[in-house]
């Protein structure tokens, strides 16, 4: 008798971290997203029968990676793929699977955040990419929050991924000397997310809460004074959110705000 496996809960908890690692292993967003989908499909099929693996994250990364390699091999039989690509696939397959330790996962998450917030991408593209790839929000939710039609938001993300691929934005954490400037860009993007959510009443796609979650994640991965400063600022502002407006939605002067809220 196996315990019921809550795939949805595991997806919510792990999919972003698994994606971050798959992007590094497979060299791009598209391949990683396909692999992520395949990995969870395999999990949905096997875990209820076999039970939860000891390390679900490592299992998913492994499953995704091998299915991606399979895909490429199958395509190679139909297309006349250049020899270098076939070579690359075999190299990926042979690479001794490295330990999926906590540090590797944190580094991959940082790689994903810094890539989504690369200054070569327009600020609104950085925000859309971060909410989609790091936070896992659907394009519909992001579009609704920024008052743009979903296809427009979807196109923004497609163009960003195209630029990452075509201009060869590397999937890496910036070097020490570049870090302050690059971190600035990330913090700016997070603050844009917070601002978008702060003036709206807290609802289903609460961007202010998402920004705080991002701030906490970044503070955990990179305990930098600027990161902690932004997190503190967002928490402070958010704490007074309920008291800012009255029942009619009008602003309440700070002196009149209810401090118990």
């Amino acid at each position, binding site marked *: 008798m196996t315990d019921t496996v809550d795939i949805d809960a595991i997806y919510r908890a792990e999919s972003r971290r698994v994606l971050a690692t798959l992007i590094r292993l497979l060299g791009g967003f598209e391949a990683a997203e396909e692999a992520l989908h395949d990995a969870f499909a395999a999990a949905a099929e096997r875990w209820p029968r076999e039970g939860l693996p000891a390390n679900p994250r490592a299992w998913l990364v492994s499953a995704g990676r091998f299915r991606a390699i399979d895909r490429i091999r199958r395509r190679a039989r139909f297309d006349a793929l250049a020899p270098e690509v076939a070579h690359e696939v075999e190299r990926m397959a042979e690479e001794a699977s490295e330990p999926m330790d906590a540090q590797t996962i944190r580094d991959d998450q940082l790689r994903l955040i810094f890539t989504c917030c690369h*200054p*070569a991408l327009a600020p609104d593209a950085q925000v859309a990419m971060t909410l989609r790839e790091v936070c896992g929000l659907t394009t519909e939710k992001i579009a609704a929050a920024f008052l743009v039609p979903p296809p427009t938001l979807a196109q923004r993300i497609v163009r960003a991924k195209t*630029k990452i691929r075509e*201009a060869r934005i590397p999937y890496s954490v910036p070097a020490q000397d570049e870090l302050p*400037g690059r971190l600035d860009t990330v913090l700016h993007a997070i603050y844009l997310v917070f601002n978008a959510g702060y003036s709206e009443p807290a609802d289903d796609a609460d961007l202010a809460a998402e920004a705080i979650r991002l701030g906490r994640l970044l503070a955990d991965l990179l305990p930098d004074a600027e990161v902690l400063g932004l997190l503190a600022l967002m928490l402070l502002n958010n704490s007074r959110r309920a008291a800012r407006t009255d029942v009619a939605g009008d602003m309440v002067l700070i002196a009149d705000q209810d401090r118990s809220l």
Partner: protein
Amino acid sequence: MQYLCLVRIDDDLIGKLTPEDDRQQQLESMAHDEDLKRSGHLIAAQPVQGPESATTIRVRNGKVSMTDGPYVETKEHLGGFMVIDAKDLNEALALAGKAPVARFGSIEVRPTWDLKD
């Protein structure tokens, strides 16, 4: 005496071409490059990817700033060009940012089209 010939493309005119006509004009461009090479006039020629692939880098007071796209202040004028080899965009930006002229203007960094594709 050497010259920079900076090619600017009219989006409206190019947009009106059919795919076959577009391919035709590209083949004709490559043939023209070959002519220049054969006659000994060509020093360097390469098509670049569109503005959506561009990143602009500036250095002011020792601080490096980067923005997406071709961002040119109207008071800037074309001063020259470099064609560099780099492993990825970060390396290209780092190399471009070291050019002294980045302190007195901006350098737009765009990936070229690999003609082998």
